[in-house]
């Protein structure tokens, strides 16, 4: 059975092209070490429509980070089919269609915010690629206007993550992969960045695949939440989030949200 994600959302500009942004069929990843072969991902199948926002939620060891790396062509699938924006993951990566945000911002310490955002334009022939955006504008988009010349050590954790998001957006990617990007931040900062991420999503029209281990974050951000179970990593359930239109933090107190969070928690307890 192929779980299908239904992502109902007002069409972003430009209107979405036909075909899903991500399509995985029976993707299995096995790591072989001296001692044993472990199955990190076991027959994963799902798809995300263009412009969609899917959050991956699961206990540690469920392979959600590995799954993100399969889509980014950082980890090779042992078998199964992966299609990213209509082509192979490697081709999508080579086209700069994929932006990646890591848990630690992974900024280069010797570069200012602006220089960090411009890094993708300097390597791998990045400047010639389609859709190079203005780094200053992007820093303003993530709320860091005026911090262009600050070095990473002069920024707070939240600000560093904002720079990392701006860097991921500089080639105007159609797909944004985020690996627990706010996992190391305090709750207040995380809430604020969650709201801003939704604004950026609307602004760019990109498809987002977002890994988290926070139930509230998963439910608040995603149009759907994909629950994963561990050992071996597999899809447990895909839950549509019944929140209407533009989301606000206050929505987390509505009965629907509380009920959804409770449901997610119950499923997670069995993962």
């Amino acid at each position, binding site marked *: 059975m192929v779980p299908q994600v239904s992502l109902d959302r007002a069409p972003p500009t430009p209107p979405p092209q036909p075909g899903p942004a991500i399509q995985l069929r029976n993707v299995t990843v096995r790591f072989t070490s001296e001692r044993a072969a472990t199955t990190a991902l076991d027959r994963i199948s799902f798809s995300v429509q263009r412009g969609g926002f899917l959050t991956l939620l699961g206990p540690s060891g469920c392979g959600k980070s590995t799954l993100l*790396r399969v889509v*980014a*062509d*950082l980890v090779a699938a042992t078998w199964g089919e992966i299609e990213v924006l209509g082509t192979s993951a490697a081709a999508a*990566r*080579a086209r*700069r269609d*994929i932006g*990646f945000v*890591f*848990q*630690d911002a*992974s900024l*280069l*310490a*010797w*570069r200012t915010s602006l220089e960090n955002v411009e*890094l*993708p334009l*300097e*390597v*791998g*022939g*990045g400047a010639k690629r389609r859709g190079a955006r203005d780094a200053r504008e992007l820093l303003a988009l993530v709320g860091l206007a005026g911090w262009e010349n600050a*070095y*990473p*050590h002069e920024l707070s954790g939240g600000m560093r993550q904002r720079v990392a998001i701006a860097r991921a957006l500089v080639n105007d990617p159609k797909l944004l992969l985020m690996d627990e990007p706010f996992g190391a931040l305090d709750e207040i900062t995380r809430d604020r960045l969650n709201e801003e991420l939704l604004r950026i999503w609307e602004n760019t029209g990109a498809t987002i695949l977002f890994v988290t281990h926070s139930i509230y974050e998963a439910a608040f951000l995603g149009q759907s939440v994909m629950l994963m179970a561990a050992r071996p990593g597999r899809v447990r359930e895909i839950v549509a989030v019944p929140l209407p239109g533009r989301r606000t933090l206050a929505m987390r107190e509505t009965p629907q949200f509380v009920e959804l969070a409770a449901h997610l928690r119950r499923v997670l307890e069995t993962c």
Partner: protein
Amino acid sequence: MSAPSLTRPTAGEYASSEESARAEFAAAARAAAWRRRLLPLGAALLLLGLWQLGVVVFHIRPFIAPAPTAVAATLYDKFGLLLANLAPTAIEALAGFVIGNGVAIIAATVFVHQRAAEEAFFPMAVMFHTVPVVAYAPILVLMLGNGLEAKVAIAALVCFFPTLVNMTRGLRAVSPQQMELMRILSATRSEVFFKLRLMSSLPFLFAALKIAAATSVIGAIVGEWIGATTGIGALIIQATYNFDSPLLYATIVVGSVFSATFFAAISQLERFFLKWNVSQAA
């Protein structure tokens, strides 16, 4: 009248109190800076004074321990001689520093890109490093003659190992995420090297260069002990055999001042290149 309230300072009062607080802070910082400079200087002068007093009070003979004033007088009288002997030592140390560190940086670059090269040559480098410089210095003098070359080679060899180890570590000190980022960006090997590895190795490199600045001078001096006629090392040997302690001490002072200046220059370069480094900024 309203309920009793705390009087709120006006904007002007805020500004002036902030200004005076800032001035107070600046004054405290200045005082602390002077303290940092003056205390060690005072301690050094105190020790010199005690030394002078000891020599005078206990009638210590000059060849055992010359008085600081005698050393200062020699420094002044024989300044030309001292400088003439510093020149070859400085040239040997600097040339050895450049060659030793240059080769070490190249070797580290090869090691990082070719594991097999590291596995083949690193044990040899470690073994060689355990041989004391005074042991292999005569061999190099026999091989390269009694000229400049042998001393440069000795200075280069003592610089080589610490830089090789540090630089290899530094070039590897990139996080897995940073490597993944470069892969997502389809970066070439040379881009990964110049934009990522080389830059993240700089703190490691400068730590090694500061060590090398001091050891290259030691290497040159040890080289000169073996039959050289000029140089700080040669002068140390001559002064010792002549029981000319004031000259010996003056020579040591000149050598130390050169070593310290060299070290300070590298530190200054480090401060310039590593503005971004947290430990430097703190």
